[in-house]
């Protein structure tokens, strides 16, 4: 059934009317020109044949219609079709040749279109090849880097500027295990993980200080600045940390060479556990001390005795005493040498890392630090700006702040000055103030107290810090007679030696722990609520229990969890822990979870496991299947453990019910089957967590199709579903 084409009907109508008018006008003119008898004759001749005239007119109209139809198809429909087809080609990825129709011009146009499409396809495939090549290269770079990192004997952690971990190697994971407060529970997985904050391990101030240091030197044009600091961890371990900047890369369009800018996008930390080295160092110091200073005393005693013995008139008794002195001291020296031989301090190691720092920079940092942490004004006195110090700036700053704080509290000092000058191959840094009382008794001991920084007390004294610098400190009156000062003698910097990093190969498993996309992410000022589901970090967890009534005495016997970071399920970062419920496990539940009483005996209690799990889940959104139950189990324990889980929660059961309201079952197996997720280890906490996580990853795009993009939307929608009557 062909559509009525109004254009043809109107066209035919117009032609018909024109013909009719022309006929009538012509007829009228002829009529006017005719004489009466002729008119009679015409009426007689035409009159009976008027019907024929009309029929002929109609027939000619049909012919006109046919011609018009051809013309319209030829000149109008063909271009219109061409336009539609071209529109399809433009808007989609369909590849086809257009069939040429209609006029010659139209055919030529079609041909040109076809050529353009071919050209476009060629360009596209060329681009695809290039992209694939580039990503292959990137992948190769990545795996090269990963291989390199895994074979490094140093622990390496790469972070973005917010302190989020982007990459770490196996060695680092082992290192963090040693730092974990609950090594038996999470094995350090609660500390190191993609997207986790490095600040749960290191004091934020330390890292910031090192970063500022690097930034300063970058601005001054240092080629490859790095900073070092030493820190003690909660577990009492000493870590030496080397920090190197990760700089932003600017690649100008089309330029082959890549310029590195001075903007930091992150940093690399290399960690060394130097606890043992430090102990060895201290031991070495002790031996060195006893060998040098101890021997000096012994030598002095012997030498003095010998010199007295040279007097010819010496009494017998005195002579005996002096000889005894010499014998005693020589024996003592011999013993000391033996001790040296047997002591295990032959492996000389590097000491505390001191770095080169412009003295003026240090003063600036000290002024800032004192003024921000104390109600004390800090001013510049005479500062020799040409001096370079060799210092461990963090601990030295803490020492200065400590002394300033003591001055402020004990003596009411509210202004201090800082002075820096050279003094015989060393730098002397003075902390000056104007004393109200000339009481110096107290100050003698300030250098020997443990440094207090804010509310914490460090294990170091001011004296220790100076000893570490091979320097010293004391209290003195200034030459101007008014002020007093603490003087710090510090080493001046020599040219910095390059650090050679000796690496030897090890066969450890390759890491799969990197996610450079985190470099793109930055601390969001938006609350989690308005974050996109695709960019959140999730802890997907499950608990196994002795029964279904957590409020009525049923206990958790297993906790399992995995992490989703940047839309990826991290297989390496899991939490899997059996828990001793301190009660019997009902026999009828054992077939369900497969946990027998002897398996939980000797395992940590919930009081030990929950803190570690809480740390594991820090800053993430909790996800569980039928989360209401698991959350209830956690909340029942809040009072006993003091651990509160106030994370945002998403429930795969509710989300699934919302998306597919017509499905009858929303059990985990049923949903997994629907999404074609392989189920392994069902009804172990970790197994269920993995299945739930995979299901959740499948749900996210489906939610997006429904316009549910943010955490807030997902939670609100889930609340509305029928199942949401189970309030958490």
């Amino acid at each position, binding site marked *: 059934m062909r559509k009525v084409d109004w254009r043809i009907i109107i066209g035919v109508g117009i032609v018909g009317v024109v013909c009719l008018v022309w006929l009538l006008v012509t007829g009228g003119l002829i009529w006017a020109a005719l004489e009466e008898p002729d008119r009679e004759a015409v009426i007689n001749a035409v009159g009976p044949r008027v019907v024929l005239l009309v029929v002929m007119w109609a027939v000619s109209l049909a012919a006109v219609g046919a011609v018009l139809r051809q013309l319209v198809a030829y000149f109008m429909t063909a271009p219109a079709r061409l336009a539609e087809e071209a529109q399809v080609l433009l808007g989609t990825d369909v590849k086809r040749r257009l069939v040429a129709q209609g006029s010659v011009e139209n055919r030529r146009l079609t041909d040109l279109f076809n050529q353009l499409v071919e050209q476009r396809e060629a360009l596209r495939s060329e681009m695809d090849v290039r992209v694939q090549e580039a990503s292959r290269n990137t992948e190769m770079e990545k795996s090269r880097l990963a291989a390199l990192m895994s074979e490094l004997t140093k622990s390496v952690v790469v972070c973005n500027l917010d302190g989020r971990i982007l990459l770490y190697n196996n060695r680092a994971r082992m290192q963090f295990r040693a730092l974990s407060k609950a090594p038996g529970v999470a094995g350090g997985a609660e500390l190191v993980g993609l997207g986790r904050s490095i600040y749960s391990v290191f004091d934020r101030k330390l890292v910031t200080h090192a970063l500022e240091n690097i930034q300063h030197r970058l601005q001054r044009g240092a080629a490859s600045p790095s900073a070092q600091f030493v820190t003690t961890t909660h577990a009492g371990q000493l870590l030496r940390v080397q920090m190197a900047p990760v700089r932003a890369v600017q690649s100008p369009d089309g330029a082959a060479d890549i310029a590195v800018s001075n903007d930091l996008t992150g940093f690399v930390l290399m960690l060394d556990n130097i606890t043992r080295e430090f102990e060895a160092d201290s031991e070495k110091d002790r031996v060195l001390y006893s060998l040098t200073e101890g021997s000096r005393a012994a030598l002095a005693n012997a030498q003095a005795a010998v010199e007295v013995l040279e007097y010819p008139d010496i009494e017998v008794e*005195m002579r005996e005493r002096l000889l005894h002195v010499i014998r005693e001291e020589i024996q003592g020296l011999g013993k000391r040498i033996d001790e040296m031989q047997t002591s295990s301090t032959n492996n000389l190691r590097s000491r505390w890392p001191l770095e080169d720092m412009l003295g003026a920079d240090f003063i600036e940092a000290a002024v800032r630090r004192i003024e921000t942490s104390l109600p004390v004004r800090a001013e510049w006195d005479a500062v020799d700006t040409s001096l370079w110090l060799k210092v461990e700036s963090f601990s030295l700053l803490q020492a200065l702040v400590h002394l300033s704080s003591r001055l402020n509290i004990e003596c009411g000092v509210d202004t201090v000055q800082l002075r820096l000058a050279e003094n015989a191959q060393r730098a002397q840094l003075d902390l000056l103030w104007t004393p109200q009382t000339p009481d110096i008794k107290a100050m003698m001991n300030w250098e020997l107290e443990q440094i207090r920084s804010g509310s914490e007390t460090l294990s170091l004294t001011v004296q220790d810090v100076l000893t570490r610098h091979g320097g010293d400190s004391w209290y003195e009156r200034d030459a101007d007679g008014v002020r007093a000062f603490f003087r710090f003698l510090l080493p001046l910097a020599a040219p910095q030696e390059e650090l050679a990093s000796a690496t030897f190969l090890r066969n450890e498993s390759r890491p799969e722990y990197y996610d450079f996309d985190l470099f793109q992410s930055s601390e969001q000022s938006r609350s989690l609520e308005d974050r996109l589901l695709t960019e959140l970090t999730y802890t997907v967890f499950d608990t196994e229990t002795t029964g279904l009534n957590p409020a009525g005495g049923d206990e958790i016997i297993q906790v399992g969890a995995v992490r989703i970071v940047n839309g990826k399920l991290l297989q390496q970062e899991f939490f899997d822990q059996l828990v001793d419920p301190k009660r019997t496990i009902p026999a009828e539940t054992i077939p369900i979870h497969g946990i027998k009483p002897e398996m939980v005996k000797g395992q940590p209690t919930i009081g030990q496991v929950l803190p570690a799990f809480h740390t594991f889940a820090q800053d993430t959104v909790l996800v569980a299947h039928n989360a209401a139950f698991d959350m209830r189990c956690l909340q029942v324990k809040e009072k006993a453990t003091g651990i509160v889980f106030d994370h945002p929660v998403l429930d795969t059961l509710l989300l699934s019910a919302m998306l597919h309201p017509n499905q009858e079952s929303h059990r985990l197996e049923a949903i997994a089957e629907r999404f074609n997720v392989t189920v392994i280890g069902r009804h172990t906490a970790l197994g269920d967590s993995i299945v739930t996580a995979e299901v959740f990853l499948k749900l996210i795009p489906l939610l997006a199709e429904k316009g549910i993009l943010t955490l807030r939307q997902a939670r609100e929608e889930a609340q509305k579903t029928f199942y949401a009557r189970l309030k958490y």
Partner: protein
Amino acid sequence: MSQTILIADDEPNIVISLEYLLKREGFNVLVARDGQEALDTIVREQPHLVLLDVMMPKKTGLEVCQSVRANPLCAKVLILMLTAKGRDTDLSKGLALGANAYMIKPFSTKELVQKVKTLLETGA
């Protein structure tokens, strides 16, 4: 009237020799065996000069030195520090805290006696 010298050192092995030597040189010699005793003796006896060992129990030589210098009654007492610490920082510190001179162990007794005499003559 002979001048009084206090030897403050906790090691009897050096005290024997120094005491003998200085007595031979005609000085009046006192001995103190720790920092506290040294400080008390200095305040009580006002010796002309103290041979002060840095490493002593109860009070280190540096503390004694500081306390002496803080006490206007003992302004005239000369202090010659004796120490096994040979680093330049120790030296700077001793002098900064008010020692008049400084000798590092081991030393020649002749030089020590010479230094004592020079100090007593110049008074500083």
